Structure formats: structure tokens, C-alpha cells
């Protein structure tokens, strides 16, 4: 399989606007599924097109297994891209759509036919060969687009938001299918999405992009546990931020001083971040402060509390049973487990007030 390296990859469409992709360095591991995550317009599709050879980079290099492939034509790169909007060829039936890549490689008709069958089985749509694309649902078209890419046995599979047009149920099904096929075939896969949950569920590693720049490239859980910036933590959502000053393993905030062994900043202005699940209600002792229950929601499998501590509001997610223990207006001890506190640099333009993102 193929390892893909992006080195200083840059794309500028026109001089007046900022680069669509800005000096991107990325090591996409061979045989793994890497998610390219970011909000709309951050340069995900542009990056994929450059890897596939459909767009010429303004600067930087793309290497497959250590060799630059910039001078290699798209049809010879072995990197197949599946587009956001499927783009099945409308005048061809499904069999011809799936067999397209093999036909271009002058594979004989008999073999094409049998491999098309295999692909239809793989994506669980046997018997669809004679239909036209417009006779298929969105989810089915998506699966055909996937089959059309897989049939040529690509070294690198580039999936551009393959699930964004599907409803929630189909999306779950397709995630499982994609993950299964990817693991079975061991294809180096880049999966574009703007949905952080999807990235986390599917990928071995996630590359987060804002405005064409790489923010963090890590295992999925790191984005929750040890995000690089407040922006990243905010993008993943749900985290409590409390500004303070960090020194010698403790962070001093308006609502108290907390032990925090895990920090990105050695010393100075910082932000304490703690996920709602890591806030323990009703426990006193070390690293605890006193707060007031403002409101609560019972959600079946968990409960969610809004707590006021001093001038700051935080969110806590607990066992559902705890709704019975605390009523709105109660004064209760609130504990932050030191191991679950993550201290960040205050690197955003506007200082985050203590909010839940």
C-alpha cells in the first residue's frame, strides 16, 4: 500500500483571497483511514483534488511512498477520488459506470462483467447493473460511486464527504460499510468530512483544517482529551473553558486554584478546559469548589446540569440517577479531576469567557 506525504502543500486560486490550502504538511499512513476534517470552505476538496492530480498545487510537494508524483498524470497516480456529489455518468447504466475504470484500462469485457458483479455484491446492490443512475436513491448512487472507485483497486482512495447527502440512518450503514471495505482491502484512505463525530468514529487519525491550515493531526481521542487550541476544543464542542494563570502544575482562576498536571503552556496566561463528563458533582476535597445548580435535563442515558460557580457557568454530564440527588438551587461541591483537566494557551483573538462551546 501507499504512504502519502504532503509537504508544504499550498494552493492559491487568486492573489486577492487567502490561500485555499496553506503550507500543509501531512503524513498519511499506509493502509490507514485518515479523516480530513474542517468546516465548509477550509480547503478539504482542494487538498483531495491536488492529491488526485486534478488541480496543480501553487507550491509544495506530494509524495507517494517517498517519491514526488507532481509530474505524474492523474490517470497514472493510482489515487481515485470519489466526489461529494457522486457524479455517476448519467447516460451510462450502472454496470458501465462501475466498469468504467477497467474499460479505460482495456480490460476485456468478460472480466469487466464479472468484476462488476463482485463490486455490486460488495456494496450490497446485486441486480442493479441495468438501471440508470437517475433510477437510484442518493444512498444507492453513493454506493455505486464507491464501487466504481474500488473496482480499479486504487492505491489511495480519496472520499470527499461521501456521507453528507445521506440521512442519519443510511449514514451509519455507509460508515460501517466503508470501514469494513477499507479494513478488508487495506487501502490508504483519506476521508473528508465536516462532521467531527464522523471523523472520530471512522478514522485511525484525524487531520483538522481551519482556513487551509492544519490545526492538529492526531488520534481521534486526542481532539477531545488534549486539543491544541481553544478553537479546536470549541470545534469539537461541549468543553468548559475557564481562563486563568498557569504556574508549577496549578492553574489559578477566578473561581479557585486547581491542580493540573497536564498542560500545553509551561507558564503564564492559560485556559483550563474540562469536558462535562469529567465534572464530578457532590464530591468535595482536593480540586473542588462550591457551585449552585441552575438547571438540569434528564436525557435517559445521562443527565446534564448547568452549574454556576462564582461568575462562571459550566456544564456537567453525569449518570442519569444523579437527577434525584440534586435539585435546582442546591449548593453542592463540584470537583475537577486533575488528570482530566487540560490546560491550553489563550491563543484566540477574543479571550474565551467561561463558556461552554
Amino acid at each position: 500500500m501507499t504512504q502519502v506525504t504532503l509537504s508544504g502543500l499550498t494552493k492559491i486560486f487568486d492573489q486577492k483571497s487567502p490561500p485555499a490550502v496553506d503550507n500543509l504538511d501531512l503524513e498519511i499512513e499506509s493502509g490507514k483511514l485518515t479523516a480530513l476534517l474542517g468546516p465548509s470552505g477550509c480547503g478539504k476538496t482542494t487538498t483531495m483534488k491536488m492529491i488526485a492530480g486534478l488541480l496543480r498545487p501553487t507550491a509544495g510537494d506530494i509524495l507517494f511512498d517517498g517519491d514526488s508524483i507532481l509530474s505524474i498524470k492523474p490517470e497514472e497516480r493510482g489515487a481515485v477520488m470519489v466526489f461529494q456529489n457522486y457524479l455517476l455518468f448519467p447516460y451510462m447504466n450502472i454496470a458501465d459506470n462501475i466498469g468504467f475504470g477497467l474499460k479505460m484500462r482495456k480490460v476485456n469485457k468478460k472480466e469487466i462483467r464479472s468484476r462488476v458483479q463482485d463490486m455490486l455484491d460488495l456494496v450490497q446492490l446485486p441486480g442493479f447493473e441495468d438501471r440508470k443512475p437517475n433510477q437510484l436513491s442518493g444512498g444507492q448512487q453513493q454506493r455505486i460511486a464507491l464501487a466504481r472507485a474500488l473496482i480499479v483497486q486504487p492505491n489511495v482512495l480519496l472520499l470527499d464527504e461521501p456521507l453528507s447527502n445521506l440521512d442519519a440512518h443510511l449514514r451509519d450503514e455507509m460508515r460501517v460499510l466503508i470501514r469494513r471495505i477499507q479494513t478488508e482491502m487495506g487501502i490508504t484512505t483519506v476521508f473528508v468530512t465536516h462532521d467531527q463525530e464522523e471523523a472520530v468514529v471512522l478514522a485511525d487519525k484525524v487531520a483538522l483544517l481551519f482556513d487551509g491550515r492544519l490545526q492538529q493531526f492526531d488520534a481521534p481521542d486526542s481532539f477531545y482529551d488534549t486539543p491544541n487550541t481553544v478553537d479546536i476544543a470549541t470545534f469539537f464542542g461541549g468543553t468548559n473553558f475557564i481562563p486563568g494563570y498557569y504556574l508549577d502544575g496549578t492553574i489559578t482562576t477566578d473561581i479557585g486554584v486547581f491542580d493540573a498536571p497536564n498542560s500545553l503552556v509551561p507558564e503564564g496566561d492559560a485556559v483550563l478546559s474540562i469536558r462535562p463528563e469529567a465534572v464530578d458533582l457532590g464530591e468535595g476535597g482536593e480540586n473542588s469548589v462550591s457551585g449552585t445548580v441552575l438547571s438540569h435535563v434528564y436525557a435517559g442515558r445521562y443527565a446534564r446540569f448547568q452549574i454556576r460557580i462564582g461568575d462562571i457557568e459550566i456544564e456537567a454530564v453525569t449518570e442519569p440517577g444523579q437527577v434525584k440527588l440534586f435539585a435546582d438551587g442546591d449548593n453542592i461541591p463540584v470537583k475537577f479531576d486533575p488528570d482530566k483537566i487540560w490546560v491550553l494557551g489563550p491563543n484566540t483573538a477574543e479571550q474565551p469567557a467561561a463558556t461552554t462551546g
Partner: protein
Amino acid sequence: MNRFRLSERGAERLSISVLLAPAVAVIVLLFLGGLASGFLRSLNYFPLIGLNDFNFDAYFAIFTDNGFLQSLVLTFHIAFTSTLIASILAVASALLLRPAFRGKRIVHFFFSLNLTIPHLVGAIGVLYLFQNSGLVSRIMTGLDIIQRPADFPAMVFDPWAIGIIIQYVWKEIPFIGVIVLAILLSVGEDYESVARSLGANRWQAFRQVTLPLIMPGVVSASVIVFAFTFGAFEIPYLLGRTFPAALPVLAYQSYTDVDLAARPQAMAMAMVIAFISTLLIMAYMKLSRVYIRE
């Protein structure tokens, strides 16, 4: 409620019909009326000049006339060759222009320049350029490519109707080109990208993906061009030989013949032109549909 809505829709339909009536009447009278009276005259029924008996003599006469058959072949040659060349060049130029013209307005301007010049002016241009004493021949003489202007190969009043075809090609490229370019821009380049990514080289991507996508547009534009060139009079009249002449010219010659008996034959020719145009267009449409389904 439902019934009310129905009657409302009925009223709307009625008012549309009423509004359209004058236009429809003009078309029916001029087009179908003209066709019908031409047809009657071709059947030797023309009381004004003393012809009252229906017969097929005119048709018999023209179809046994070698000159008419030669004209027919020539006309087909002119229409087919010019449409084919214009279509190919139009597609090629639209493809070349596409990357440069993301702004559609510029394209429009570029092509409409040519579209607004009348055919007649084009014909005079062709005369001026391609006659034996024309500009091209004189330049070539000046450059010593040919010895005398008279050595310049005949491209006007020539047996292959080269001058006529040049004029039609020049005039029709932008017409087909505008349509193709509009389709190319609306289809976008992503289908080609998919094809390239799946392993198609440039040519395969064009042949297997882009061409089928633009084909319906190319065909419908070509059909219009073909029908026009098959039945048009002025260009072959100005740039063509007198014998064999293109069908519309031949029909005109017969119609203005001093011998009134030639009138039904002129009408018969006109009918043949109309009939063949219709047939060819139908065949073309059918072929193109098969092609698209492929």
C-alpha cells in the same frame, strides 16, 4: 375548493390560448398555407396560369432529370459537409475557450460579433478573399507560393462548392459554439475529473464522458444548421456554379423561367427540399438518441 381551482386552471389555459391565437394563426397561415398552396401547384393545380388538372408530371419530370439529381447530391454535400466541419470546429473551439472564459459574458460578446454579421456580407467576404483575383491568391502570389493569381485553386464557383462551405462553416461555428460552450460551462469539469481519476486519459475522458454529455446540444444545434444550409438560397446563388446549382437555386431558376410550365416543377422541387429536410432531421434525431443511449 377543488372544483374552483380546476376551473381557475381551465380559465388560465383558455386565456393563454386566446393570447397565443394571433401568433399561431400567422404561423399556420404563412407556413402551412404556403406549404399547402405550394403542394397544390406542384401537382399541376394553378388556376391563375391556366393549370387545372391534378397530376404528378412535375415530380416525374424532375426525378428523371439528371440535372435535378446532380443538384440534389450537391445540396446534400454542401449541407452535410459544412455542418460536420462546423460542428467539429465548434466543439474544438468551445473546449479551447472554456478555461479562459469562466465569465460567460465575454464569451457571449465574442461569439455574437460574428453572429450579427449577415450571411450576405459573409458571402462577399468569401468572394473577396478566395476568388482567383482575391486577397488570398494575391498574397500567395506575392509570397511566391503560386506563380500567378490564376494558379490559385478554384474555391468559388467551383464544383466542390468549397467557397459555399467555407462561408457556412465560418458563419455556423459560433452558432454551434455558443451552445456547446454554454453546456460545457453548466456541466462543469467534475465529470471529466472523475473520469481522469478513474484512469481515463485526456482523450478518453473527452470521448467517453464530455462528448456524450454535450452531444444532445451539438446535435440539436447541428440539425438547425443542417436544415438551414439545405434550404438556403443566397449563398449558393452568390458563390456557386450555375450548373449544377444547389436545389434552392435550381428551384428559383425554374420558377423564374419564361416557360410557365416549369412552375409546377419549381414547386415540386420546393416540396422535395421541404420533404428531405424533414426526413433528414427526423433521421438525425433518431440517430442521436440512439447515440446518447449508448
